[in-house]
């Protein structure tokens, strides 16, 4: 865990030691958080099934184990804020409020998909919730997030952009260029590193000379923090500080959220046994973020077993409905092939630029 450097005002104290909650009980909020996280879990369990059945093709990267990060961070945002992310994007898309039906249809490659079947798993996008997409190239979206922050500031808005990335992104040139510019120009962007410890199969320690990677923010004179990514309350607290700083002071933050993925890198990757041991996985699964939240809620008398079962059944039905919807959605017509390559070949469905005000 991080050590706070004396006399360094840009390192904030948000790095929590990951005890749940703040002592105050907020059953309604907690239930929302639980629903959000459990929806992602149930949705992705069915994604794995659909992949095995060949309904989802290509490359599919599951988020299971990291749900406290998407839910914890995005539950702090306003509807008019912006989100941009990497290829492991299902969880964030759902946590931001994208329709499970249209997300599943996209994964199935159908015309009712969020981008009409042209993007697939790694490229979810929805302008209605200012979700600027998953991106299939590691690090390439980070300068885009910087540009979104630039546009917000240029127009004098008070929105914030959260730019997610995995920990391996910090080794790309794009990361360095983008964060330097954000630090230099003081842009309202929160760069959230989801440190799940492996870039595909390469451990952080084998790829980065610095292991507490939030410290990289020092190079850009950027406020920075580290928090426990399995504890949704710790994520919320750290995000709240960063978002306040962006909204109020138009300053960026580099927030490292330490988490762990319970699945392989992609569907073709063994869950353990190659680059990480089963023992390591088992140890980390003891800190399942959904389980931790449930325990917290039960300890505080916010949730009964019956309620849990009811919520779970409800979410499973939502996911089944998404599956059925996707399954029935037609395949994209060949005529759509040349649509939206250029503005003059654009289909009616294409809308205007995203509004910043």
């Amino acid at each position, binding site marked *: 865990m991080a050590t706070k450097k004396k006399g360094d005002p840009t390192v904030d104290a948000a790095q929590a030691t990951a005890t749940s909650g703040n002592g105050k009980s907020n059953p309604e909020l907690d239930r929302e958080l639980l629903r959000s996280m459990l929806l992602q879990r149930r949705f992705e369990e069915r994604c794995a099934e659909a992949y095995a059945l060949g309904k989802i093709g290509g490359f599919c990267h599951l988020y299971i184990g990291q749900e406290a990060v998407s839910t914890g961070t995005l539950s702090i945002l306003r509807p008019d804020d912006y989100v*941009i992310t990497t290829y492991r994007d299902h969880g964030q898309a759902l946590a931001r409020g994208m329709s499970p039906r249209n997300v599943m249809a996209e994964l199935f490659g159908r015309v009712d998909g969020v*981008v009409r079947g*042209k*993007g697939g798993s790694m*490229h979810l*996008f929805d*302008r209605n919730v200012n979700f*600027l*997409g998953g*991106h299939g*190239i590691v690090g*390439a*979206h*980070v*300068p*885009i*997030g*910087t*540009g*979104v*922050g*630039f*546009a*917000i500031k*240029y127009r004098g808005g008070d929105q914030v952009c959260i730019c997610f990335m995995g920990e391996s992104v910090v080794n790309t*040139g*794009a990361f360095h*260029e*983008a964060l*330097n*510019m954000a630090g*230099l120009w003081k842009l309202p962007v929160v760069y959230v590193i989801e440190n799940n410890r492996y870039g595909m199969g390469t451990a952080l320690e084998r790829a980065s000379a610095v292991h507490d990677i939030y410290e990289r923010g020092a190079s850009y004179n950027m406020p920075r923090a580290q928090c426990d990514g399995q504890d949704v309350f710790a994520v919320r607290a750290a995000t709240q500080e960063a978002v306040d700083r962006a909204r109020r002071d138009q300053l960026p933050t580099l927030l490292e959220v330490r988490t762990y993925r319970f699945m392989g890198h992609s569907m073709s990757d063994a869950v353990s046994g190659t680059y990480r041991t089963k023992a390591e996985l088992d140890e980390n699964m003891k800190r399942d973020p959904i389980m931790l939240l449930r325990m917290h809620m039960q300890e505080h008398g916010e949730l009964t077993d019956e309620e849990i079962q009811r919520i779970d059944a409800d979410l499973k039905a939502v996911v089944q409905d998404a599956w059925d919807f996707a399954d029935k959605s037609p395949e994209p017509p060949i005529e759509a092939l040349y649509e*939206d*390559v*250029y*503005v003059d070949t*654009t289909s009616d*469905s*294409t*809308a*205007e*630029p*995203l*509004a*910043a005000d």
Partner: protein
Amino acid sequence: MAEITYLEAIREALFEEMERDANVFCLGEDIAAYGGAFKVTEGLSKRFGEQRVIDTPISEVGIVGAAAGAAHMGMRPVVEMQFIDFVANAYDMLTNYVATARYRADLPCPMVVRGPSGGYVRGGPFHSQNPEAGFIHTPGLKVAYPATAEDAKGLLKSAIRDDDCVLFFEHKYLYRRIKGTMPAGDHVVPLGKARVAREGRDLSIITYAATLWKALEAADELERADGLSAEVVDLRTLSPLDDDAIQATTKKTNRVLIVHEDTRTGGIAGEITARINETCFAWLDAPVLRVTAHDVPLPYAPQLEDFVLPQTNDIVTAARVLAAY
């Protein structure tokens, strides 16, 4: 109205477009305080301030990426590459990200990436290139490469107003050597429209950018020495290509020579040749020929550079072969 240079025409376009639309802003390395490596943006920051004319770190990926992010938000960034050779750093951003944004995410990306291109200036291998082919090859991008001062201004204004990303190649040899008189008012030249720079009957020379002027010289020489009437077509925009203009001149003269300063293999001459084959084969009286740079990196030494790049004599020689076929 007074004549202005190709470079001044570009500057005028930037001033007018920034004046017209507050969403237009410029960013690049040393474009504000310094005025740009070639002084294209001189005076811009004084007029519009540092918020709209932004000196950036040397971060081509970051600059192009940030411009794309701002463009998604409805702004119209104009990015300067200090030399267009450096756009190679941002190739990923442009071809993978920007080019596909509309297609995969409904995201418009109205931005311009402009910069000094081309040789004949003893710039050596990293300050003389014509890397347009890689971008022409990428669906989702548009490419303009003006030869005249009038087009430099009119095409840049179109590029800035276009709702897609336009790569705008400026020929640095022409910056201060070519002058033109700007038409009055809002002078806009549409993208995707070629121009017949010289009417002719016997053969067609299709070209763009600096080699337009060599083709025109060659046409004069062919007329004087051989009595041949060469038509010269300036493509102006390379993506989208003006197929109508290419077909019209082919059907008119039945003999086509394509000239470009880019290297031969994979250059746009091959693409144009294929299109003529597909659409105008029955009209051809001779194979389509091309004059291009040799397939080597561009050397510095004047004698070598002059040999590698197309010269007027090369065009005259090839045209004679074509006419005699």
